[in-house]
């Protein structure tokens, strides 16, 4: 017997770490470290040190906040985010639910509504410029229907509400697709039995959506909200093609400070600001959504 046990011991290998996965993961870790973590720390470093002496200074942040465009950039970034993101989530949810209802032709519908994923903010801005510009399609349509004699000018500094409307519409048009895809993937993870069970117990479609589907979809909604909000803070192409600098936004200011005023330091200060905004909003979302869950339990 003792012999057999000894043999077993010999067969069972000592706990050994398999290094293969670590080796395979190493290039990614190295690359992300070099091109994500290094630039992030470097952005902060550039924002708070003097380019000549390397000494600590608030000068760049002061220059940034003293700039005429600074307050407007923060204000408009937040306004656009607050208007566009909820609309994207609502419309994205509607499209995802429609696709998930599997009506005839739903796959063509999915492809069509997912198309904007392949369209850049720059191209989307140019597309909507063809609609909102002075001799654009919107004026052509209004004139054709007999509402106006002369073209209305939508994209002008005097009419910032229209500028904002154009930007928000473009953003909703372009980025709803991403929200939709995230939510649709989430919807498909929900087992069909749950919905059927709710039906068996007499829940209507609306009740099923409200009390079964939406709570189960919460992780996806959370992801969609966080991704879209963070990307909204980086808004650049859409805004500069439709409004130039008439609607200043944070990423746009970073660009102007870097390439026109040739100040990487102030541009970095803006980058740090965007980073802070993104971090804060993620934290807020995670907190707020968690508290809600406890309310439901209680």
């Amino acid at each position, binding site marked *: 017997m003792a012999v057999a046990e000894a043999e077993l011991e010999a067969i069972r290998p000592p706990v050994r770490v398999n290094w293969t*996965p670590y080796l395979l993961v190493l*290039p990614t870790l190295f690359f992300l470290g070099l091109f994500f973590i290094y630039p992030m720390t470097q952005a902060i470093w550039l924002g708070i040190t003097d380019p000549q002496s390397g000494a600590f200074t608030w000068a760049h942040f002061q220059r940034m906040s003293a700039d005429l465009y600074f307050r407007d950039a923060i204000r408009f970034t937040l306004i656009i985010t607050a208007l566009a993101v909820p609309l994207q989530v609502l419309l994205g949810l509607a499209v995802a639910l429609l696709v998930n209802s599997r009506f005839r032709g739903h796959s063509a*519908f999915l492809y069509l509504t*997912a198309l904007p994923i392949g369209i850049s903010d720059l191209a989307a801005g140019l597309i909507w410029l*063809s609609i909102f510009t002075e001799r654009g399609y919107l004026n052509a349509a209004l004139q054709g229907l007999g509402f106006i004699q002369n073209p209305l000018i939508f994209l002008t500094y005097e009419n910032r509400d229209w500028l904002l409307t154009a930007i928000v519409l473009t953003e909703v048009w372009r980025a709803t697709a991403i929200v939709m895809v995230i939510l649709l993937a989430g919807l498909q993870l929900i087992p069909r039995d749950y919905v059927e069970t709710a039906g068996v117990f007499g829940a209507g479609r609306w009740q099923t959506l409200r009390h079964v589907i939406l709570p189960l979809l919460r992780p996806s909604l959370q992801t969609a909200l966080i991704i879209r909000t963070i990307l909204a803070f*980086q808004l650049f192409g859409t805004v500069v093609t439709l409004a130039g600098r008439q609607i200043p936004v944070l990423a746009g200011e970073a660009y102007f400070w870097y390439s026109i005023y040739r100040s990487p330091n102030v541009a970095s200060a803006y980058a740090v600001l965007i980073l802070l905004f993104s971090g804060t909003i993620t934290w807020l979302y995670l907190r707020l959504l968690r508290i809600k869950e406890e309310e439901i339990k209680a």
Partner: protein
Amino acid sequence: MRLRSLAIYSAALAISAWVALPLVLIAIAAFTPRDILYQWPRPFWPEKFTLDTIRFFLRSTGVWQSTLNSVFVAGLTIVLAFAIAAPAGYAVARFRFRGRDALQLAILTTKMFPATVLSIPLAVAFIRWRLYDTLLGVAIVHTALSIPFVTVIVTSVFIGISYELEEAAMTLGSSRLQAFFRVTLPMALPGLAASAIFTFVLSWNEVFASTILTLNNRTLPALIIDSVLGQGAPLHFRFAGGFFMIVPALIIIFLIRRYLLTLWGVTVR
């Protein structure tokens, strides 16, 4: 039940129109003769179409070269992203190892990372490393941005291919590497191709980093931003440019439609 399907179809129709109409309009604008674009009253339908607007765009200074640059950068990005991220994706799919969840979370976080924040400090570093205003530099940043997507899709592709087949090949006497290259890889190719194609779109569309990191060697989006903001390019240039930029994207999204859900569908839990 009738009413419900009527509601579904009308909603689907309305949303389809909302998505498709701007695409149709920019296509019309890109083929509308120049003088009609500036005419008032502006006709909605131009009666006759022309290639002049597109031709004008393609012949503008730098457009052709920057298109080639964009394609080159995108190609390089695909190569780099695969060389770096595909092994990681394979590891996550095939091995249970300590730190696997943390790695997946880290990769997901980088997907949300602001490209804006990366570009400016990297421009400063690239000047020092002699990568500023080079296509390689742009490709490196695009690689960093596409690694999360490549890892996620490669993982899902390999999870979809049963490991038993690989094991069977190994019991029949092939080595682990042979089993991978002869058995698993051929089956993984369509999925890998889809993620390569998506990487292409990502790079082709990227605006901010390429604008910041180049000066003379512009990619197409950087050139368009420059000519719109710097030189106030005419409207017909902008419309033709917008149309030209979305054409490859439309074809490509069609090619990878099966994988759309995988690309974005991973959620934080």
